[in-house]
């Protein structure tokens, strides 16, 4: 019995010895590409409420206004990497309203029949953009890239919008513009 216990104890010691180990460590340092931005009012006091253009003539062009009380957009960039900013837009057929035949609008390179022209550009708080980029209806960054930021750079964005030169209806249209921030 004592012999058996000694053998068992020896086995445990051997086993313990075989698990003895030396440890070391190394550090992996990684920063995730954090991409976040917000569309805010021109004075950055709150979320952008939308651009209520109201009634316009056919083929008429309107530009977002400058200044803290203007209706342009302050793009608050919270990202830690440089980004390409692009956009796409669409406008489905509105509900019937009694004025013509409700028809979807599409973005185009020029205003046309039920085709609107939407352009975006980077300006300053009190200055409209010197140049604009035409925004189409597809999410392809290269085709409608309007600004490339440095990491964390916020900026003032303006829209220049031209109504269709001929519209099939006189109903309120809602155009959704989706701003896309992507790593180059």
């Amino acid at each position, binding site marked *: 019995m004592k012999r058996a216990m000694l053998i068992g104890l020896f086995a445990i010691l051997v086993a313990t010895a075989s698990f003895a180990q030396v440890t070391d460590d190394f550090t992996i340092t990684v920063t995730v*590409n954090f*991409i*976040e*931005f*917000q*569309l805010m009012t021109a004075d950055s006091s709150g979320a*952008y409420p*939308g*651009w*209520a*253009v*109201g*009634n*316009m*003539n*056919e083929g008429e062009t309107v530009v977002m206004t400058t200044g803290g009380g203007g209706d342009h*957009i302050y793009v608050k960039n919270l*990202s830690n990497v440089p980004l390409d900013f692009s956009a796409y*837009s669409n406008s489905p057929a509105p509900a019937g*309203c*009694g*004025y*013509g035949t409700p028809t979807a609008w599409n973005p185009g390179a020029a205003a046309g029949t039920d085709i609107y022209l*939407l352009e975006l550009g980077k300006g300053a708080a009190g200055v409209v953009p010197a140049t604009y980029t035409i925004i189409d209806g597809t999410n392809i960054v290269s085709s409608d890239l309007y600004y490339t930021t440095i990491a964390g750079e916020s900026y003032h964005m303006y*829209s220049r*919008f031209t*109504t*269709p030169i001929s*519209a099939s*209806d*006189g*109903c*309120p*249209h*809602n*155009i*959704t*513009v*989706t*701003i*896309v*921030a*992507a*790593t180059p």
Partner: protein
Amino acid sequence: MPRFNNLTTYRCDFPSAVRIVLILMPLMLVFSLFAQEATAPFEIDVTVNYIDLELRTTGGSPYIAWWISMVGSGDTVGMELGEVVHLINRSNVNVDLYSTIIDSPDSASSDTLWPVWEVAPFGGHDSIGFRWASLIDLLIPPFSTGQTILSSPSLVELTIPSAENRYLYGWFIAPTEGEPGERHRLLSTITLTPAMVP
């Protein structure tokens, strides 16, 4: 054991770049699943000034023409009630109503045999006068309510509410001189524009 050694040797035979690619590939695949982009939408709300009209008879059929016959030199002819133009206003904004009138000879008819009439406030030598009155109700208005129409856009009524219809009552003032059988085709254009004073 030899198998393990062979495997180890085999892996070490890769060029270092290839090994890095082999190691990174799973990571790259994982990253590609998480698109490196963020989106945020905003809305543009817009309504086009929709201007549309239709000219009908008081009976509801499309208005073709106002036929005037046997008018004497210098006479003024007003429409009968059944000849009044019913303007169906399909506009979504308030509008101003303008009109023009010109002598527009039909080249396929005997119209061209006669000198073209000029348009003046009143009829004269080879000139005619024309007036429109814009009415809410169907009635025969006094001549004085008519607005003089010329060959250039002439105002008939300001700020007609959106989608509110009108009856257009017309007067024709014949030239002071004319030839028996003289025939003309006049063309009056009705134009709606967004109201200057909405």
